């Protein structure tokens, strides 16, 4: 568990730290420091399009060494105070020693041990879902219940609602506090209906600011079943008061901390895929040291597609994961941002590529999928969650070489269409929520892709069955 005293110390460093505007941090400090360390450690131009799953583990180790030094030089910018929270290299190393390598979560038959993993680890990674995708209030319980019908979905996170008792939830207002309470009620209903009242929990979705967590996290968290608090940060190498609010509240509840969401963007301030690897690792290290995160949760996206499934992004995420998994016992996940919607082949192929690439590289768990990029309300169904959970677990013990071979094939199925992803169908048009069964069309798509993956060497079970 994180320490309140340490958190207050970091808050104090935010108050007293050196001043830096957000603009200077993004446009000068990040790019210049990043370039300096890429050069110093000979890490420029290492991206290899033939290995979207990185095969060079010594290279990954070098990225880690550089990121550790870079993190100690930079620190995190607190955007509310426009000051830099500085920590020393020794403090980072100590934080990495102190961080847990496993968490026991959940109750009864749903009790699990979330464990740190290494590249090519045979231990099963844990699949969590759904993400905080918006659904109508009346669909929350059946959709969530349907997702939990797969026993391979082992932690519950979302979905989200944007109304509370039919009234719009305005961000930064008491509506968010109210929705924090409301989603806990709905999650409990879904868990009971799915026969899984002891599900491990991540929360709170449905609220942009800290109000949702303040409203609901303590209701979901208990001494017997500590929940993981979702603490999103603005972007790479930045944090804010909202993250501190959530972290402090979780400490007060004896919950766990998931401090992430600080994505590095290929094409953005960190520049190249190589630059993003560096800032992504540095960000995770600082989230553990400054916000005392229990799990590492920032990933790399490709700004050109707003996705982590492009060839460049897959490579960058696998290098960063391997670097962190080999050199620490942090429990990692690297979110996959799929762009296609339900009832399309693309959502399944991109989910498979991201799941396989991250699982073999050493993530402890994965949450997802981000169906239709999270852009449209009600565009998520249980089936893509069942599918992704199966693929993810089936990737345990696979070699990096085999994973690369499969991912290269998967890229050939969707890569050209990344700029124009099909939006698919809302849940009401491709999934029967009364009997929790996909439509014939959606089931056939899943069967086809499953067969294809098996033919390419992934030993996955059939996800596409009626669950009620």
């Amino acid at each position, binding site marked *: 568990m994180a320490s309140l005293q340490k958190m207050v110390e970091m808050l104090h460093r935010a108050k007293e730290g050196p001043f830096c505007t957000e603009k200077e941090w993004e*446009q000068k400090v990040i790019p210049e420091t990043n370039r300096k360390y890429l050069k110093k450690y000979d890490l420029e131009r290492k991206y290899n399009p033939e290995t979207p799953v990185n095969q060079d583990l010594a290279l990954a180790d070098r990225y880690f060494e550089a990121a550790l030094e870079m993190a100690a030089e930079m620190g995190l910018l607190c955007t509310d105070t426009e000051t830099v929270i500085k920590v020393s290299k020794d403090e980072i190393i100590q934080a990495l020693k102190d961080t847990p390598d496993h968490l026991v979560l959940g109750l009864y038959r749903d009790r699990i041990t979330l464990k740190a993993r290494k590249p090519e680890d045979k231990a099963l990674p844990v699949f969590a879902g759904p993400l905080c995708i*918006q659904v109508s209030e009346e669909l929350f319980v059946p959709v969530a219940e349907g997702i939990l019908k797969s026993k391979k979905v082992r932690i519950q996170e979302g979905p989200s609602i944007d109304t509370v008792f039919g009234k*719009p*939830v305005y961000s930064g207002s008491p509506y968010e506090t109210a929705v924090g309470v409301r989603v806990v009620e709905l999650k409990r209903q879904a868990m009971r209906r799915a026969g899984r009242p002891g599900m491990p929990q991540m929360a709170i979705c449905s609220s942009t600011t800290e109000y949702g967590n303040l409203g609901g996290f303590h209701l979901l968290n208990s001494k017997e079943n500590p929940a993981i608090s979702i603490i999103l940060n603005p972007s790479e190498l930045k944090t*804010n008061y*909202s993250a501190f609010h959530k972290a402090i509240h979780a400490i007060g509840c004896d919950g766990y901390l998931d401090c992430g969401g600080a994505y590095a*963007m290929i094409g*953005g301030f960190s520049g190249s895929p190589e630059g993003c690897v560096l800032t992504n690792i540095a960000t995770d290290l600082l989230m553990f040291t400054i916000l005392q995160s229990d799990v590492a949760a920032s990933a790399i996206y490709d700004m050109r597609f707003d996705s982590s499934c492009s060839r460049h992004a897959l490579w960058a995420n696998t290098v960063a994961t391997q670097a962190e998994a080999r050199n620490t016992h942090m429990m990692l996940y690297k979110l996959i941002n799929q762009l296609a919607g339900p009832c399309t082949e693309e959502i399944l192929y991109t989910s498979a590529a991201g799941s396989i690439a991250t699982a073999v590289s050493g993530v402890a768990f994965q949450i997802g999928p981000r169906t239709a990029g999270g852009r449209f309300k009600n565009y998520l169904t249980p089936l893509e969650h069942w599918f992704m959970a199966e693929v993810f677990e089936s990737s345990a013990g696979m070699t990096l070489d085999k994973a690369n071979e499969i991912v290269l094939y998967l890229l050939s199925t969707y890569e050209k269409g990344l700029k*124009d992803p099909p939006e698919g169908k809302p849940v009401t048009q491709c999934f029967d929520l009364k009997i929790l069964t996909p439509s014939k069309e959606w089931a056939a798509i899943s069967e086809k892709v499953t067969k294809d993956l098996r033919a390419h060497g992934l030993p996955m079970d059939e996800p596409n069955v009626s669950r009620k």
Partner: protein
Amino acid sequence: MGSKEEILKKILDAIIAGDIPAIETAGKEALDSGINPQVILEEGGSKGLDIVGEKFENLEMFLPEMLAASEAMKALNKMVLPHLTAGGLAKKKEGASVVFGTVYGDLHDMGKNITATQLSLHGYEVHDLGTNVSVKEFMKAADEKNARIIAMSSLMTTSSYYQRDMIEHLKKIGKRDQYYVIVGGGVVTEDWAQTIGADGYGRVATDAVKVCDLLLEGSVKPGTGTIHVFQGSTKRHGATKTYYKEVE
């Protein structure tokens, strides 16, 4: 003094390099040698920006370099726009002030930053209000900056409600016909933009430029029910080819 082509090439190179002193020298040289201001902007500045865009797509240039190019383009606009006398760009010059922010309760800024950069690159005077901006703050800034466009970004559904509040507020205070309101961001769709009565909607950053150009160069007044929608695709929620439609 070099030939017309040589001078325009200097401008183009300075834009790509984000070199403000070089753009000031080349811009002055272009004006002094009597090159049509519209040609300076289009064949020097805009062409340079196209190359910046291509380089970004190929991961040869990144956001910091794009921002530097945007600053260079701003410097060029500042020198050349006052010399325009007629035509679309001149019309744009008269009303090219945009107040831009991420709405209240929403701290996401990446999409807003990229879109603001695109607008700056294309000659707009962008007043970036940052994130977590209330309706009241948008209103105050729009009045103070004499803006014509209020651009509101929102990543979350729960914050997009403030886009509707902005439009309702403008109606209440009798200023709906004074400001164009354009909306965009993660969860914001064409449907939402139409529902709340926005004047424009774009799916991606470059769409915003096209939307603003249409609003300022066209004859449609704010809040009349016509919406310019660019989302780069022939599909409803897609993202590649450019097209627009007007809904009366």
